[in-house]
């Protein structure tokens, strides 16, 4: 097959501009290293060996060019595709179009480059059916999000497996009219029928669109990330949990989390859940009262999926924390994005035995020695801790590190956190902690501006 192609190409070439190809190019190849500029392929024939000596880049076999193209960036590949018809054909081989990231930015308002509109057109025309792993990166302009929706609406006849809608700055999808967004999104939901991973955080997706998703992809859906989707209700997400038994990863806001949801994810039919990410975000202090999840629901989840990672990010004011961690909670990764009270950190020590990572942005001016030591003692899987604007005495901190020992692989403590006391000053603490960690450790520094 090779040689056939080869011959055809050669003939075409001969017709074009290589009148000098003559018979001795066809002679025996042993040692015939005729290096003729302009590339002449010399080959021998004789049964059963067909050896081909390539001296013409333009005539490299397809699969070789394909491999090379796979290493190139899109821009470089696009340039290479205009070199010759052969390379242009390779450029359009479906394998190169399985994965694509559409970058949609308005040049006046973004530091990022955009995918060229001509290329977008080409993809829609020639490659929509090849696309399997698709993402859209948009900036904070509504036009960019609208452009993304327009492309989505044209992705019919496709077998998309992964879809990601990513806003790199402000969530511009929220500014698109809800009907426009939903109709575009459901085009993909309906047509793909084999969606396994969907990331639609910060979008106006709603309950009906989730129903469409479920109706068409319930067998294949494994991952769903939809943090900050204000138009979805707990019932909407419950529908997903009820029908999509292969769901392994889920990210949502706390208001969508319910006892029913956790139970639905723990039924026998359901696979083990691997990762649950929950964002708890304040609207305005005092205006949202968060509900509590029953301990029995958490227990059911952990019984069903013993290895599940439960990640909770909190962006609350101190007084809003009341409903949390009152009872044993199987959370593994906790981030407090604003300040959190001493009492809450005490609760963490008491009620989070599965804790792996704790990151605290700020607490205040009371030393957290007790709380930290309790966390060290009771959270036996704790491997990572980060403290921002907090206070811990140096001796208290050393005690904590002694308790945890080498399991602490991440220890990020702002320098101002550590209060020197009679036992240790800042220079001594670095050696002491390094000793217990088994590696050189320094607190994080901020420049004295």
């Amino acid at each position, binding site marked *: 097959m090779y040689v056939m192609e080869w011959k055809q190409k050669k003939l075409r070439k001969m017709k074009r501009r290589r009148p000098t190809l003559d018979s001795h190019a066809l002679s025996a190849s042993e040692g015939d290293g005729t290096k003729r500029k302009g590339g002449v392929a010399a080959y021998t024939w004789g049964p059963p060996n067909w050896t081909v000596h390539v001296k013409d880049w333009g005539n490299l076999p397809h699969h070789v060019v394909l491999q090379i193209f796979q290493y190139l960036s899109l821009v470089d590949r696009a340039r290479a595709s205009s070199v010759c018809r052969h390379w242009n054909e390779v450029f359009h081989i479906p394998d190169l179009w399985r994965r694509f990231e559409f970058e949609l930015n308005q040049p006046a308002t973004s530091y990022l480059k955009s995918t060229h509109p001509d290329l977008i057109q080409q993809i829609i025309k020639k490659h929509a059916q090849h696309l399997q792993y698709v993402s859209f990166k948009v900036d904070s302009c509504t036009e960019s999000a609208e452009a993304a929706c327009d492309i989505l609406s044209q992705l019919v006849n496709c077998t998309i497996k992964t879809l990601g809608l990513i806003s790199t700055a402000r969530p511009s999808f929220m500014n698109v009219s809800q009907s426009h967004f939903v109709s575009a999104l459901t085009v993909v939901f309906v047509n793909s029928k084999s969606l396994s991973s969907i990331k639609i955080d910060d979008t106006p997706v709603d309950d009906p669109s989730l129903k469409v998703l479920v109706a068409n992809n319930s067998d294949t859906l494994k991952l769903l990330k939809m943090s900050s989707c204000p138009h979805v209700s707990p019932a909407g997400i419950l529908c997903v949990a009820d029908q999509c038994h292969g769901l392994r990863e889920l990210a949502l806001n706390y208001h969508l989390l319910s006892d029913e949801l956790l139970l639905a994810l723990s039924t026998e039919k359901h696979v083990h859940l691997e990762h649950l990410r929950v964002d708890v975000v304040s609207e305005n202090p005092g205006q949202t009262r968060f509900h509590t999840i029953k301990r029995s629901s958490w227990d059911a989840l952990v019984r069903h999926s013993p290895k599940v990672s439960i990640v909770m990010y909190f962006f609350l004011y101190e007084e809003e924390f009341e409903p949390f961690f009152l009872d044993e909670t199987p959370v593994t990764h906790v981030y407090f*994005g604003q300040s959190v009270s001493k009492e809450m950190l005490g609760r963490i020590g008491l009620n989070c035995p599965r804790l792996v990572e704790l990151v605290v942005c700020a607490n205040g001016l009371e030393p957290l020695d007790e709380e930290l030591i309790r966390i060290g003692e009771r959270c036996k899987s704790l491997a990572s801790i980060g403290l921002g604007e907090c206070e811990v005495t140096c001796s208290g901190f050393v005690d904590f590190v002694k308790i945890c020992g080498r399991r602490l692989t991440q220890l990020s403590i702002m320098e101002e956190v550590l209060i020197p006391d009679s036992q240790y000053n800042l220079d001594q603490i670095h050696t002491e902690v390094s000793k217990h960690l088994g590696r050189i450790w320094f607190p994080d520094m901020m420049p004295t501006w």
Partner: protein
Amino acid sequence: MILKSEHYAALAGSANVGVNKWRFLLESLEDLDTSLRKLDSRLFVVRGQPAEVFPRLFKEWNVTRLTFEYDSEPYGRERDAAIVKMAQEFGVETRVNNSHTLYSLDRIIELNNNSPPLTFKRFQALVNRLGLPKRPLATVTKQQLDSCRTDISDNHNERYGVPSLEELGFKTHGLSPALWKGGESEALDRLNKHLDRKAWVANFERLRINICSLIASPTGLSPYLRFGCLSCRLFYYDLRELYMKMRRHSSPPLSLFGQLLWREFFYTAATNNPNFDRMEGNPICVQIPWDHNPEALAKWAEGRTGFPWIDAIMTQLRQEGWIHHLARHAVACFLTRGDLWLSWESGMRVFEELLLDADYSVNAGSWMWLSCSAFFQQFFHCYCPVGFGRRTDPSGDYIRRYIPKLKDYPNRYIYEPWNAPESVQKAANCVVGVDYPKPMINHAEGSRLNIERMKQVYQQLSRYKGLSLLATVPSIQEEAEPPMIDESKAHSSSGLCIVRRGPGRPSCREQRHAPSPRSSAPVPPPQKRARETNSSTR
């Protein structure tokens, strides 16, 4: 002293932008002139471009030698190289001395295998090796000046006098008096007071910030260091001697010189990097998809964000030209990764205009640090525009001082007036949305979004796919003890290795000299990479 005419052009009609900076500079020049007068000499301020001015002066004044202070900043080096060349053409000897920094920056870089250190700990280790900086020279004496007389013409003030603010295009009517007076005399006076205060406090530890620290300190020295009114070496040695006197000759720890060493650190990082003050094309800067929003930027720059803590800080900055370093952290974080998600370059430019001690290296470096764009900073720590302010100054007096409109608000609501019930707002005679702006962003939602964005950026950079927030940032582990230069030939690493940490994950040492496109962080030699665009986020 050459005042370039382009400086005036930029100022014309610019609503007094940068007036504090210029006033400080002019006061410094006046002070220098006054000091020289006491030695029977004068300061000559020449107006024009160096390229035209120097040739003219070389001839007119029969110049035989030109001396100036070494400027390590990339722009300065370029300019000075041209001047040196010009001087050579005229047969003028040039002497360039290094006095703006404690050490020779090239020496520090050389000691670190020809690469500026990217962590402060590493920098401190190198400085330790270098020992003490050169001692400052004594000031110029009359005898020294006697041997180089110049005729002072009668019209000296018109031709070579220090210009006035009006001459530069500023409107001085109604301008409040300067809180920071420029000049060497003032600098030395402050230095003495600064040392006195340290001695009185009798401990050299860092003090907790409170409202007093937020207000302009009569012993603050940073603008004087920036403008060269105070020698960093003089400050260093005076501090050192004071410590040794009080602590019975024990050698001071490096932490005593924190302010000076941070300054030195950023100067070292910047000197070989002509793109140090921008994101694009800067090999040490992470490419972050910042938003572009001139309206939001203006609100921040003009103190109209609706967050009193932020607005008070920006107001103090605009009025006085100096804010405490934690206040800088607060507003820098708010503009970039904390809330508004705007580029640190815009913030840097605003500081350049308004902040008296903002120089190229420290300003750009600090902005990159605070926005987590360089130097491998963890980004989880965010300064809350309400909480951080409240913890720093619970009395709220700082806000009342710089935003008098809010002075009647009770402490409970002064940091978040939008949450005050209507009755309280009316009683305070300041209704949010009418007399004072509404908050321009929901901080909780904003920080949630931004943490996600930072995580996305850093996950691409470090290729970390796990769940740990802290492990997303590739940690950099420079060896604490720098190898001597000749030892380095044996090792391929410069003492720099990027360690991706995670449970059970082996650390991977990446060679600096052969960074693959997939390397964790872009840290190649600055000379080589300065022209390549940063492709680390692809």
